[in-house]
């Protein structure tokens, strides 16, 4: 079961600043545990961000992204109250969708 994301979307003038904090192990598949066995890869493979019903990010992520990653970006054209929907899928097929409103 994936942990919920924390999404913050703040309007500053006409620019919305959106920050997404994801809880994920982001295992690269290169790490070994105490017993010397390889920890299997498990990472977020793709993510999408929709703001106000419009897709603004459709991206791929890989093993170079840190554990519990934070993504931040700024966008123009968002209005207060717009729904921000973030969705990710990881390498094991686990999914998570969370939403927040632009404030």
């Amino acid at each position, binding site marked *: 079961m994936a*942990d*919920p994301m*924390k999404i*913050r979307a703040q309007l500053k003038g006409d620019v919305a600043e959106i*920050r997404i*904090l994801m*809880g994920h192990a*982001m295992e690269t598949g290169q*790490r070994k*545990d105490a017993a010397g066995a390889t*920890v299997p890869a498990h990472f977020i493979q793709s993510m999408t961000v929709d703001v106000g019903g419009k897709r603004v990010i459709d991206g791929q992520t890989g093993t170079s992204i*840190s*554990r*519990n990653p*934070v993504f*931040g970006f700024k966008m123009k054209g968002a209005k207060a109250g717009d729904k921000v929907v973030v969705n990710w899928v990881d390498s094991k097929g686990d999914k998570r969708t969370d939403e927040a409103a632009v404030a």
Partner: protein
Amino acid sequence: MKHSLIGALCAVAVMGGAFAQTPKKPVAKPAGKAAIAPAAEEKDAATLEFEKFRAEMEDSNPAELFEAKGEEQWKNKRGPKSASLAETCDLGQGVGKVEGAYVKMPRYFADADAVMDAERRIVWCMVEKQGFKFEDIAKQPFANANSTPDITNLVTYVAGHSRKMKIDVPLKDPKVREAYETGKAMAAYRAGPYDFSCNTCHGADGKRIRMQNLPNLSTPKGAMAGVQGWPGYRMTGGVMLTHQWRMGDCFRQQRFPQPKYASDAVAYLLTYMIGNANGQVYKGPGIKR
């Protein structure tokens, strides 16, 4: 009695500063090997960059994820006795009350007849109220790359409810005072292969190890530098760690035996350090590089 206790526990720690913590105070300018560290007040470029970076990260601190988990674990019925901490655990502000509890510990708890820091108290509640076995909790008390124990989430949750509050350890309580004085003596106790005491590094202003400033724990500001940011999320490895863990890490850096988890020794040292920080504002769970 106190001295034998100190000897037996080998309890001396370097706190706060050292490697695990991001520089909180201005970094002294790089000096030649023979130079004595100057009491630098101006901040150099590296420190300013670190501060910018930290401010940015504090805005989206992954510690929040652990807080959320801790909240669930605080409120849910758990353990062999199927009790929730929210309904049974008194952190000193009344049963289940977490608001401002973290900054008012360590304090004396009559039901346990001991001075306890936040983590020790929550462990006590888990054992007494929920029926968990102390040995099981102490087996892996701190987070590593593979897992985070419940106790770490719980401490983070409780600490999150003391954001922007002033540290207020009840040093007027004679039991807490005694713990403080013992902790103070422990901080001055020299031993180990380096013949170090806590105060060797943390007893005077303007000391540092390489680029790392070492706070003077006998001053309110210095002590706060050792308290601030714990529990903290370490970006190296992505693990959430508590103040108890930090104390153990100081023991390690001093080449001392590890203190027992949730023991008197750690509680006394924390009482000394957090007590010295009385009046300073705690920012909540932090983030470390």
